Structure formats: structure tokens, C-alpha cells
């Protein structure tokens, strides 16, 4: 039985591109017009698989990799559902790491059913060495807790490490603080879920519990090469956003 995300009191959503606050679950940003299509058009290539480290420039020293490995191991041991990828690269000028992370997390194809199953609990950390920024994007399975409010707050808690010791120590410290803070948040979430299950019918009418999730999530866009590896999936329907209201405001 899956609970509706509302019971966990997630924060408002934001546009991955312009970062505008959205009041509802839209498919087009009313502020900048961002859609999945525009995102795919902006990055017209197939990203590499989401391994633990994606470091095309070999920017990570062995010692730094060891520090990150240790922190990631500890985090993934504490939260067995979560898989973390640290991607260190130099993004082109003007590229926002959050938008890139959103695209990367959705566009990178899972290599096997197990990876596909875990993808919704994936956490992607993009280190842009050009703009000296660290961006974090999480999957649907985590955003009921790690929403657009919780995530920035947790990153800000580790700001001192990011500013004084660089991104490696900053990420390690952030994961440590996140581990500590998530314990309380997850306890509250569990309590909320139990309370929701006890309530029963009123919420059941509002959020049908029997509705099964799609067993295979859709890709944003399937390239012919991807279609060979994956089963055919329907392309996103541009008309699906019609009738939805996107109320945007600058954060």
C-alpha cells in the first residue's frame, strides 16, 4: 500500500530550469516554459550510466575518492534504498547543474531491472567544476522528504565545509549531516504513514490506495539506440499539460 505524498507534507515543487516555485504538479513551467521536451533538446546526447562516480576528466584524486567512498558507503548502509552518484565534470558555460542533474537522472537508462527499481531512490550529486557549484537532484522516492526545502537547508548546514575545504569534504560533511537529520524526518514520516493508515476511508477516497504504479516508468525520450536496449515506451504527450495550471513565482 502506497501512501500519497501529501501526508508527508512535502514542500512546494520548483522548476528544474528557472527554479520558480510551482503550486501544483505541472508538466510545463508557467514561468519559463520548461518541459521535458525542451530539456531533452537542450542536451541532445545519451548520458553515461549512473555509477557511483562519474568522473570523465579524472578530476578526483585517489584520496578524494576514498573520502567520498567512505561517506557514501556509510550513507548507503544507513539508507539501503538510496543509491548515490557523484558526477564531477565541467559543464558548459551557462548550464545550471540542477537542470543538468534533472536531465541526467531521468535520461540515463537503467542497465537492468534492479537498477530501474532503485532509480526512484537515486540521488545524483553534480559537481560543476566550471561554476564551482554542487547540485543535488533526487528521485521521486526521496522527494517526499528530501524536497526543495529540506535539501537546500541540509546543504546550507554544510556550507562551511564547502567554502573552506572544497567539494569533497563538503559532500562528505553534508552526507553526515543529512544522515543525522534524516533520522528524525523519517521517524516523523513513518508516524504520518501509520496515522494515515489508521484513518482509512476518508483518505482512501481522496488518494486511491489500490492504484498500482506503472511497473515500467516512461523515459522522457527514447532514442533508437535506447529502444533497442529497452522496451518501447510512449513519448510524453505534450497535451498532457493542458488544463493544468502552473502558478510560478520567483523563489
Amino acid at each position, binding site marked *: *500500500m*502506497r*501512501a*500519497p*505524498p501529501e501526508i*508527508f507534507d512535502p514542500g512546494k*515543487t*520548483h522548476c*528544474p530550469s528557472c527554479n520558480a516555485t*510551482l503550486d501544483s*504538479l505541472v*508538466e*510545463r513551467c508557467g514561468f519559463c516554459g*520548461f518541459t*521535458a521536451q525542451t530539456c531533452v533538446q537542450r542536451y541532445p546526447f545519451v548520458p553515461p550510466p549512473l555509477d557511483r562516480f562519474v568522473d570523465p576528466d579524472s578530476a578526483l584524486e585517489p584520496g578524494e575518492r576514498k573520502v567520498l567512498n567512505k561517506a557514501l558507503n556509510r550513507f548507503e*548502509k544507513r*539508507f*539501503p534504498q*538510496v543509491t548515490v552518484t557523484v558526477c564531477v565534470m565541467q559543464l558548459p558555460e551557462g548550464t545550471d547543474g*540542477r537542470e543538468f542533474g*534533472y536531465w541526467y537522472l*531521468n535520461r540515463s537508462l537503467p542497465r537492468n531491472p534492479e537498477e530501474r527499481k532503485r532509480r*526512484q*531512490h537515486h540521488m*545524483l550529486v553534480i*559537481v560543476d567544476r*566550471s*561554476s*564551482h*557549484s*554542487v*547540485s*543535488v*537532484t*533526487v*528521485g*521521486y*522516492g*526521496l*522527494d517526499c*522528504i*528530501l*524536497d*526543495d526545502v529540506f*535539501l*537546500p537547508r541540509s*546543504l546550507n548546514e*554544510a556550507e562551511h565545509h*564547502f*567554502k573552506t*575545504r*572544497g567539494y569533497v569534504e563538503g559532500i562528505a560533511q553534508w552526507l553526515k549531516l543529512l544522515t543525522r537529520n*534524516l533520522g528524525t524526518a*523519517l521517524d516523523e*514520516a*513513518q508516524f*504520518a504513514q501509520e496515522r494515515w493508515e489508521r484513518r482509512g476511508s476518508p483518505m482512501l477516497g481522496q488518494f486511491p490506495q489500490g492504484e498500482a*504504479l506503472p511497473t515500467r516508468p516512461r*523515459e*522522457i525520450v527514447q532514442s533508437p539506440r535506447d529502444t533497442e536496449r529497452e522496451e518501447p515506451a510512449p513519448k510524453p504527450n505534450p497535451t498532457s499539460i493542458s488544463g493544468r495550471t502552473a502558478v510560478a513565482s520567483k523563489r
Partner: protein
Amino acid sequence: MRRPFPSPGNILAAGCALAFACTSEAEVHVLDFEKTPAAGLLSVADIPERSGTGHVIDETGSLVSELLLKTETALRRRPGAPTYLVIKDGGLPTSTDAYGNELLRRWITGGGRLGALVLSVSEPLPATHVVLAGRDLNSTDRQRLRDLGAAALALSATKGDPAEGAAATALGLAEALATFATAYHDSIIAPTPTPDAGAAGSPQGADAAKPAPPGKPNTTSHWDILSAKLDWPLIRAVSLAVGGITLLIAGMLILPRLLGNRSLHFPEHEPRKRFSAPYAGGSNAQIRYRDPQLAPPPDRV
């Protein structure tokens, strides 16, 4: 007429009398074999050599042969409650209790329910001690044995020579102890083997009577003395208390860490799907970092 205030001389005399009385009473020692250490556990040296099954050992040679023979014969008649007479040349190497316990443990063979030892020493002052031993003695029995020993000691006062006095004490004590053993036959438990006395199944006294192994000296270590003097029940209780407190503190320290390391799971919920994205809807955050090896980054973020 006004009663005179006791003079210092009177007080001193009364004190000496009291001290003498106390000293005299302290010469009778009653041991309970259930509570005293087994033979060989205490570091008792200078064990007098017995000639066969002899009951009289005269290291000083002060007893005349007739009296020695008479005493020996009389003491041998009481195998159920043996009484021994030891006239030592010099003092005792250890306390009277420990020394008497050691000798009686060694000499009382199986079947002996009671035992007594008359110990005459010449150092530091000539004195005669009476050591009585039994098993599972209650307070009444102990008191009766103490009275019995005191009465026997009184016999030595009639003799001028300490050795003769000790012999008279031993003879009187043997008679009285035999009567006592008969009267309290049912109330006194026969000797039973103890684990620390030797092999299981054999009487304590029989084990003690065996000669020491060839390689083993006739004395024991200082640790044995210490262990015999330690209050093991108290030590056990203190150890349990300290162990319990330590475990409690360790639990208080370790339990939160164990709970802190438990696996946590995100709740299963319907995905907040948006932008037609299959895996992530764009929940994100960003922060700038500063490379410690490089110059401050431009404000591009």
C-alpha cells in the same frame, strides 16, 4: 561514710585482671572445619613430625617418659574425638588458629567428628593453648566447646611445670571431649570431603593425612594466605555490583550508537510525477563551493 574514689592503683589492678581474664579466655580456640581453610592452603611451616600414629609430640623433651607414655596411651583410646598434645620448642610460626587448624586438618582422619589440640609454647611467653575443632557448629556448641576447653585449661594451673600442665590439660580434654562427642553424636556432622582438600570422594582428614607430593613443599604461597583471609562473598558481591554498573553504563553508551546505526527506509508513496519525468521531478538544491587550492570562484551561480 563517704565511699572512697577508686585509686589509680585499683583501676590498674582491675585492668590487669580483666586483661588476664581476656587473655586466658582467648587461649581456647574453637574452629569450624566448614569455615576454615583445608590443610595445605595456609602457609604454615614448622609442622611437627608425628611418630606414626602418636598423639603426643614433645619437641622440648620436658615430659618425663612415664608421663609421656601415660598421656600417649590415654589419648590413643579416643579415636572418635582425637586429642593431640604438642609441646613446641619455641613459638608458633603463625596464629594459633591457623596453626591449630593446619595440624588438626592434617591429623584428624576419616571418622573423627571432633578433634582437639593442646598446644604448649615457650615463646614469646610460656603459654598453653587449646584448639577445638568440629563441623557445622552452632553458637551453642561453640560455647560449650569453649567452656570445655577453658575447664581443661584450668587443670594446668594445678601443675607447676608447663609441660605437665599441658599433659594434664590434654588428658582432661580428651575425657571431656569424648563425653561431649557421645552426647552430641547426632548433632555433629561427620567429616565430609571438600573440593579444595583433595580428590573428591575421600574424607577431608584422610586427604590431609596423606603426605605431601614429593615436588610440593610443605608450605603454601603468600597468595594462599591472602586468599584465606579475603572475604570472598563480599568480593563476589562487589564484583557483581561493579559489573552490573559497568554493563549499565556500557549499555547506555552503546545502545544509542546501535540505534543510530540502524537502517532507515524512506516511505513507499505515490510519486509526485511532474514534467512527464520517469524518475525524478526536479527536487534539487545547489550550493557553491570554493576550491581550497584555487582562487575564489567568480560569482556565476
